């Protein structure tokens, strides 16, 4: 499972499955400038509480499903046909630990569409946190563009650190989820 986060330009870079090779595991078309600030993370998604978040969902190999049982939501991930899902988390993971009385509480992403022998263990995690924690988390990430093209990484601190702008506040963070590789 791979996840790309768009921040701060609010647009995910174009993708083309034919580019899925080597380091570019999600098949991003890096000729699209919109992709240059997208950050890629493995199966744990951080999202801020109280803000609408939109998932753009795709699949690489077979049909999977992004199942969010605590949010009462799910959406299939279909190769070749992107689907979308949006919601607003109301409680942080820490708040839910208290509300549910379960100190191990975690928002889990379950694959809800039969996808092969690894189906039952295809698990992701959503960490819902405060805006502040979320910004701190984003600050630790580098755009995937720099990982794939290390020479493009600016020497100085980049001008577009995730912790700036007020203009982003009213809009939804954007995440693309790409479940794949069931075995």
């Amino acid at each position, binding site marked *: 499972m791979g996840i790309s986060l768009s921040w701060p330009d609010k647009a995910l870079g174009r993708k083309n*499955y034919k580019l899925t090779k080597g380091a570019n595991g999600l098949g991003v078309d890096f000729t699209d400038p919109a992709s240059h600030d997208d950050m890629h993370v493995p199966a744990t998604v951080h999202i801020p509480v109280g803000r609408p978040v939109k998932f753009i969902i795709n699949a690489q190999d*077979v049909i999977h499903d992004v199942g969010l*049982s605590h949010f*009462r939501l799910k*959406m299939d991930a279909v190769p070749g046909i992107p689907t979308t899902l949006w919601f607003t988390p109301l409680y942080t993971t820490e708040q839910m630990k208290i509300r549910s009385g379960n100190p191990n509480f975690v928002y889990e992403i379950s694959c809800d569409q*039969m*996808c092969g*022998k690894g189906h039952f263990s295809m698990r992701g995690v959503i960490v819902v946190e405060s805006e502040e924690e979320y910004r701190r988390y984003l600050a630790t990430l580098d755009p995937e563009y720099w990982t794939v093209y290390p020479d493009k990484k600016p020497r100085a601190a980049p001008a577009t650190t995730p912790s700036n702008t007020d203009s982003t506040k009213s809009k939804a963070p954007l995440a693309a989820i790409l479940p794949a590789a069931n075995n």
Partner: protein
Amino acid sequence: MSNIATIHESDVHGVHEEHHEHHHHETFISKYVFSQDHKMIARQFLITGIIWAIIGGLFSVLFRLQLGYPNSTFPWLEDILGHWAKGGKIDPEFYYALVTMHGTILVFFVLTAGLSGTFANFLIPLQIGARDMASPFLNMLSYWFFFLASIIMFASLFVQTGPASGGWTIYPPLSALGDASSGSKIGMTLWLVSMAMFIVSSLLGGLNYISTILNMRTKGMSMTRLPLTIWALFFTAVLGVLSFPVLLSGAILLLFDRNLGTSFFLSDIVVNGKILPNEGGSAILFQHLFWFLGHPEVYIILLPAMGMSSEILSVNSRKPIFGYMAMVGSLFAIAILAFLVWAHHMFVTGLNPFLGAFFVLLTLLIAVPSAIKVFNWLTTLWRANIRFTPGMLFAIGFVSLFISGGLTGIFLGNSALDIHLHDTYFVVAHFHIVMGVASFFGMFAGVYHWFPKMFGRFLNNTLAYIHFWVTLIGAYLIFWPMHYEGLAGMPRRYYDYSMWESFKMFGGLNEFISFVAMIVFATQLLFVFNFFYSIFKGRKVTTPNPWGANTLEWTTPVRPGHGNWVGEIPEVYRGAYDYGKDGREFIPQTEPVGENESHH
């Protein structure tokens, strides 16, 4: 008076029958193997269906073993299954193969062929007053295509890479790509070929049932005098003939995608690091083709059970079925709506929510004819002098399960709720109760009720009562708790839940369900024993009409020979449900309407 006359006549026929058979010199092969007699073909379907049911049920016990006891090992499993259960623990790949084959076997081979194949063949000629099917030869072919399909499907269990394991719905790309799952290799090809044979069998059977019912009714048997069993089997056949070809087309296109490099269902795929060249196909297209059969299929399974239960409820209530025309009309309405609701299986595929709204409306409309049927069954039972024969108990059990399972269908038919409930145990609970167990109850009711006509003997009643109570209570104990698991979002088709923080609290409940499932399975073996024992050693039927029923099959000799009636085919003067009329317990369809007879 006429009842006595009927018995007397059939005694005479009994003598004729021996004479009649003496002339034909049927060999073992022509009588029991390549038989063209509808009653023998029905028995062939039934016994093949029972064998499949044992296999399919056994598979469910095996995977319930894994679900109930995920942390235990059973060394004897390795002795039986070899590398599929290394160290006594079922392999995930094999677990999914078991789940897939359980669904395939039970839905198609048992509850379609085993149910319709048995009772449509057995009852249509006998209840409409025909000597045999419109084409006995095609009828024989129908069974042998089913047999061929069975052999191929059975063989797929023994190939090295295992049988199909992508779920009985075989969604591509999983089912299209051998690289995605070892069950999608040769096992999947065999699945598709077997299903193609199965569909041919189904079409040959269905065409025969329809033409027989429309053309070969005896004198006086107008459509509105048909027993409800026949109406139900008629609509079942129509559904099958119109919807199975669509699955066939889907299966053939999938075979093309698998073997000929086409892209009907494939696009933009990277599997195991390999970039596939397929572009422009739609994985969702297959789901449309599949569910265009898949949803009518639910009613192909359910309608025969409805028809038989209606008949058995009326006979054993000693009352006319309440609202005969409403029963026929609601069957018709269900048959029409069955074709218009398929996309309610696809609410979370990315289907346009506005389109979803239409499917919600059409799906919830099914509640109307369903409620009419339930109301009529209950009013038939209302203040009746009920005979609790095993067949009757199972028919009442069918009504109970149909209500319980039908109500949860209202939840699932709502696209907003379905976003949460889709592919959870709520769905598993719903369709097992309303379609699986309910149809099994209809089938059991039919077997207990018509066994005397099929084999000239009764099934053992004590074993039958044990069978009924354990199965009814067990079915509720197994499937009722699954609703709670489903509401918590527990996904279906998982091999092990113990690593999931959200679902591991159901471990104890899963163990309980598995435990009950094993008891219920063992009870079904009791039924199988009763069935085969009673064929040879059961109490003999001495009167041609042991249940005091009105329909024509009970006017034949106790063991009807080829051609069913030895003399003339009886003429029909009335509907099938004149019970408790004018102070008489029952009036057979063959009795002319008396001058002073009251009108209902």
